[in-house]
C-alpha cells in the first residue's frame, strides 16, 4: 500500500498516541489490531471442533504444544468469507495472558496510524457490534476498523 507521502521521521519516531497495527481483512471489511497484541500469524492449522460452545467458536488448535482457541469473527460479526482461501490465516492474539486465534481472510500489512486519524466509533458507526470497536482509522482512502480485543473475546 502507498505510504510514501508520510514523512520519514514520523515513521520512525512514534508520538505516544500513534499506533502501530496489523491490518487484516474479514469479508470485505478491513480491520486492525495493535501490533503489541499480535503474537504470530499462522496458516490454517487443523482445527478441532469443541462441542457445546458458541457458534462463533471455531475450535482449538495445537500451537507448539499449547492449546489455543480459534474464533470465527465472520460468524460473530455476520460477515461472509471472501477472497482466495489460500490467503486465509489465523492471527494469534495475546492479551491478559489469554491467547486466542482469529481466522481472517487475508493479512494485509503492518501500518502506523496517527492518533489524529482515528475517529470515535459513535460518530461514524452505529450497529449491534459497535461495542467491539475502538474507532475507525482513516489511512489514505481506506477505512480501518480498530478492534477492541478485550470486548470481542469477553
Amino acid at each position, binding site marked *: 500500500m502507498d505510504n510514501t507521502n508520510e514523512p520519514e521521521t514520523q515513521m520512525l519516531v512514534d508520538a505516544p498516541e500513534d499506533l502501530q497495527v496489523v491490518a487484516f481483512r474479514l469479508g470485505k471489511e478491513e480491520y486492525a489490531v495493535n501490533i503489541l497484541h499480535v503474537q504470530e500469524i499462522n496458516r490454517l492449522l487443523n482445527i*478441532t471442533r469443541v462441542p*457445546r460452545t458458541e457458534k462463533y467458536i471455531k475450535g482449538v488448535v495445537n500451537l507448539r504444544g499449547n492449546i489455543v482457541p480459534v474464533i470465527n469473527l465472520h460468524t460473530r460479526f455476520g460477515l461472509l468469507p471472501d477472497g482466495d482461501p489460500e490467503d486465509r490465516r489465523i492471527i494469534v492474539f495475546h492479551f491478559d495472558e489469554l491467547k486466542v486465534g482469529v481466522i481472517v481472510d487475508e493479512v494485509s500489512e503492518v501500518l502506523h496510524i496517527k492518533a489524529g486519524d482515528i475517529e470515535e466509533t459513535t460518530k461514524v458507526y452505529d450497529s449491534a457490534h459497535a461495542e467491539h470497536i475502538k474507532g475507525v482509522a482513516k489511512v489514505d482512502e481506506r477505512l480501518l476498523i480498530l478492534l477492541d480485543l478485550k470486548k470481542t473475546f469477553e
Partner: protein
Amino acid sequence: MKMDMSQYLDVFLEESKEHLENLNQKLLELEKHPTDVSALNEIFRSAHTLKGMSSTMGFEDLADLTHHMEDILSDLKEGMLAASPPVVDALFRSFDRIQSMIENIERGIGGDSDNRDLIGILNGIKQGHMEAAAVVEAVLPEPENHVLQHSQDIGDLGLNEYDMAVLNEAINAHMRVVSIKVEIDRECLMKTVRAYMVFRSLEEEGEVVKTIPSAQEIDEGKFDSSFRVLLITGSDPGEVCRNLNNISEIQVSECEELHPDSLSVCAPIPVLKESEGLSGEPEAHDQKKGVKSKQTVRVDIERLDNLMNLVGELVMHKGRLEQIGVNRKIVELDETIEQIDRISTDLQAVVMKVRMVPVEQVFNRFPRMVRDLAKELNKEVDFIIEGKETELDRTVIDEIGDPLIHLLRNAIDHGIESSQERVVRGKPVKGTVKLRARHEGNNVYIEVEDDGGGIHTEQVLQKAIEKGLIDAKEAENLTWEETAALLFHSGFSTAYAITEISGRGVGLDVVKNKIESLSGEIFVDSRPEQGTRFRIKLPLTLAIIQALIISVQDEIYAIPLSSVDETTMISSQDIKLIQNQEVIMLRGTVLPLYRLASQLDIPAAQESDIDDIYVVIVRKGERQIGLVVDTLIGQQEIVIKSLGRLFLGIPGIAGAIVAGDGNVRLILDVATLF
C-alpha cells in the same frame, strides 16, 4: 583461617533435614519400645552425624547441644540409663530445638541459640545416673595422653567411653575400624582445605569417629603437618587410603585396621595385624549403603512441566517422521525412527516418574504431631501408618498435607474418646488411629481411620438444624450419605474452628474443597461407638491418565479409563425403548443408552443401519450408562492439557490432548456429559 562454607550450606541443610526426620522417627520408635537397640543406634548415628556436620560448618551452639544429646544417648546404649518418659521427652525437646535452629540457619538468621536450659536438663539426667555409674568410671582411667608419639598406639587417640561405644557398635555390625595418619605437604599453603578434602573423601567411605587433633582444631588450622583419624567403614582400608592419596599434596603415612580386642579405653595396647574376623563381609557393605542418605536435587515443578511439554512435542514429531517413513518407504529412516521411538518412550516414562514421590514425605510429619496432640489431650493413641511407599504426583503430594492434618486432628480430638470412656465402653484403653495409603488402578486411596466414638447421626442433624442448613422435617428423611454430606457443608464445620486443636479455622468443607481441587473425592463411613473412616480417592497424577480413544464420524475423543467399565458390541435389535429412552440389557441389567453423536451435536453423515454397534459402558457415580460410538481406536496414556479460560466448565469436556499427528483431541468428562 576459616574456610568459606557457604557453598556447602545447602548440602548441610538438606542432609541435616534428612537426619532430623530420621531422628524424629526413631525417637518415636524408641518411645514405643524403650529397649529397641536398633532405633537407639540409628538415633545415635544421626545425632552424631549432625554434630559432626554442624561443627564443621561452624554452628557451635548446634554442635554443643547435639553433643550433650549424644552423651545421654551413649548412656542409653550402654544400658546405664533407661529410656524413661522424662529422658525421651528431654530428647524430643532437644530435637525440637535443633530443628528450630536449623530452620533459623536456613532463613539466614544464623544458628546461634542459648541452649543452657536444655543442656542443664540433659546434664541433670546424665548426673542423675552418673552417681550410680561412678563405680564403673573409677576403674577406667581418664584419658590424658594427647601427644602423638607412637602412632601404633591406639591409646594415642584418646578414646573415651562414647567413642568406644561407637566403635564396638561398628564392629558388631561387621564394619572395619581403620586408623589413618595423613601427612600434608609442608609446602602446602592451604592445609585446612586439604584436610577438608580428606574428610569429605573419608565421609564417602564411612564415618570419622575421632581425629587428633580435634576436628575443630584441624578446621582452624591448628595442627602441624599431620593428623590422625579413626574411620569406621565397610570398604577395604587399602582402597580408602589409595583414594586419599589421590588428593594432591597429601600423603597417607599409616593406614591400619584395628582389631576389636585393641579397642579398649585408653589401654596402651599395640595395634594388631589384620584380623580374620573382620575381613569385610558383604553385608557390611549393604548396611553402609542403607545408612547413606539418598542424593536428591530440588527442581522447580515448572521446569518439569516444561520438560514434559517438550517430550510431548518430541513424541508428536516422531509420529510425523513415522508417517514420512511409511509414505516414502525409506528403510534406513524406518530403522532410525524405531530407535527414536524407543528412546522417546523411555524418556516419557522417566519424566513421568520424576514427578512421582512417595507419600512418605508427607506421612513422616504425622507421628510426631499425633504424639504431641495425644499428650496434650491426655489420650492414649496408637498411630499406625501403612503403605507410605505409595507414590503420588508431586503436585498432589504438596497439597495433601493440610487436609490430612485436619482429618488426623479430628480423629484424635473428636474421634478417640478419653481413656475412662473407652474403659466404660469395653474398648482397649489405647485408641488406634490408622493412616493408610494404597494404590488401586489409576487412583491412590488414603484413609484416616479411628476406633473412636464415631459420628452420631442425631447430633449431626441437630447441629445442621441449628445452623439452618436443613429443617427438622427434612432431617427425618435423610440417608446416611446425605447426612455425611452435611459434615462437609461450609456452614456446618464452623463449630470445629472454635476448639484450638482441630481448629486453625478450617473445617471439613475446606478439606473437601482441597481434595476436589485435586480431582479427588472424599467419603466418610462411620459406626457409632466403633469408629470413623475418612477415605480420600486421588488420581495418581493430575497430568497423565489412561484413556480409551474412540471416534464418532470423523471426530476423535478420549474417555478416561477410570470412568470406563467395559466395552461391548451390540446389534441394533438389542436396543429397546422405554418411554422414548433407548436402553440395552447388559447381563440382566437395564442400562440407558446415549448416542455420543447426538450428545455432542456431531453432524450425522448418514443414518447408518450397520448392525454392529460399539458401546462403551461408562460409570457416572453409581449408575452405568451405555455410550454409542462408531469405532474403538484403542487405549493410550495421555497427557492432559487445559483448554484454557475461554472454555472453562463446558459440560462433558474435561480437557484436551495433543495427539500423535499434532491434532488436538478432547477428553470427555462422563460425570457432566449427560
